[in-house]
């Protein structure tokens, strides 16, 4: 195993995330008949934020400051386990899928704590929503991952999304399709995308994720934005690897395929966002339960 592909994919993981956001925004702009911001706009935003200073409320404690640091860190750690191409997760061990899922959980936990630390009832509301929905999304995620684990006979991310998956599609296609559908719904929910949360709105009553991070500013907010972009990237990579289990063997080609898949997914998300209205809050749990049910049926199909 050479070092170059590893470094390359790590580099991609570090650089790419805001690009996905840019593509989504551009797609939405085109579909709604606007010119829209440049695809690279998220990078400019991050750069702008990094140059500003941060403001801290006097009522906040160290937890508030830890939030924006810990959550991107957790996502970065999680990124190490995600195989962009086949033999190329930097870290990998038996059962790392559980660690991966809980790293996502840690990031959410610290974000919620930071939001609560402000003492604002407003952010508390966002935190409460986030946790409520997460408690439905996480089981769905785990069940979907369990389907893949069962099909591939592995609980190691780089093997679960490895070459075995391609053959598994031939034997357990319906189950994997269900898992993919479930995973897509979880992706939308976890990343505060459209039918669940409107990432562009600043109407307080409808926001979920955005409302938790309102008090963060400057570099802190940049870290948070970068962190959430990275989270979207991580989920997207797994979904693309699930849907396009191509394994040619030439690292460059594989990487190109994955990146193309990522861009395609970003466009798809953009299309979903511009064609759907945000669900009423009381309907969101239903969507997440649907996602869980899809995955559960998939699990039943492979576990008979």
């Amino acid at each position: 195993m050479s070092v170059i592909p590893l470094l390359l994919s790590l580099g991609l993981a570090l650089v790419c995330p805001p690009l996905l956001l840019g593509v989504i925004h551009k797609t939405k702009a085109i579909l709604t008949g606007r010119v829209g911001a440049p695809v690279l706009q998220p990078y400019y935003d991050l750069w702008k934020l990094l140059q500003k200073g941060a403001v801290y409320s006097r009522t906040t404690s160290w937890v508030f400051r830890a939030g924006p640091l810990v959550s991107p860190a957790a996502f970065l750690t999680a990124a190490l386990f995600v195989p962009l191409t086949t033999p190329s997760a930097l870290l990998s061990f038996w059962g790392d899928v559980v660690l991966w899922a809980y790293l996502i959980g840690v990031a959410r936990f610290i974000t919620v704590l930071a939001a609560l630390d402000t003492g604002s009832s407003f952010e508390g509301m966002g935190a409460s929503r986030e946790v409520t929905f997460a408690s439905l999304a996480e089981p769905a995620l785990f069940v979907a991952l369990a389907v893949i684990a069962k099909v591939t006979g592995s609980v190691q991310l780089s093997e679960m999304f490895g070459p075995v998956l391609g053959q598994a599609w031939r034997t357990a296609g319906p189950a994997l399709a269900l898992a993919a559908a479930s995973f897509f719904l979880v992706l939308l929910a976890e990343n505060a995308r459209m039918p669940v949360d409107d990432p562009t709105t600043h109407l307080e009553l409808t926001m979920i994720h955005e409302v938790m991070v309102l008090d963060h500013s400057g570099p802190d907010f940049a870290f948070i934005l970068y962190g959430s972009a990275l989270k979207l990237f991580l989920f997207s990579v797994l979904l693309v690897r699930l849907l396009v289990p191509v394994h040619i063997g030439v690292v460059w080609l594989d990487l190109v395929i994955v990146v193309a898949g990522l861009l395609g997914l970003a466009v798809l998300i953009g299309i979903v966002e511009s064609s759907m209205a945000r669900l009423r809050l009381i309907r969101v749990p239903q969507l997440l339960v649907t996602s869980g049910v899809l995955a559960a049926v998939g699990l039943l199909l492979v576990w008979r």
Partner: protein
Amino acid sequence: MAQGIDLILVLAMLLNFLVLGSSRLRACIRAVAFQGVLLSILPLLLHQGDLAVHMVALSAGMLALKGVLFPWLLLRTLRDGSMRAEIEPLIGFTASLLVGAVATVVAFVLSSRLPSLPSMTSSLLVPAAMTTLLISLVVLVSRTKALTQVLGYLMLENGIFLFGLTLVQSMPLLVELGVLLDLFAGVFIMGIVIYHISREFDHIDTYHLTTLKG
């Protein structure tokens, strides 16, 4: 081939959940219609050997009735009756979905316990049939609109049809056509009754059909 059959069966199962989770009557009618269309393809796929008139007639009948005629009839009733196209279930949507998931698990467990079946093309056939049966019962019990009860009945029929596919080779054509004819007449009469209900009661909620008791 086997993959295709499995895919159709899984889709048919998922449509059950769509009916459970959707609050729009129109969407539910379309889902059940689509389920009927999917099922109408199955006899042709499951049939081994050369294509018999039997199978083609069955498929065509299914397609014409469940895919075209019934949805048209129900949608027309929905429009003419000027009734609200929202479903107000006795059990909430999320709870319904969970009940549906439990029903699916039960169906899989049950069908794994069933005594051995004759050789079948797809091992998913019986679980899919059971799932559809159980969920149709949930729909029948928990939805109070006359139209949704008809939908539940159609889903029940779909489930039974799926089950009947296990012996698709041995059922005589006459019987199956008779079943289809009965089904047609049944839904037709139900349609008429629903029309009358919507006229007499200004709604089609059977929750209010409670004069007769004791």
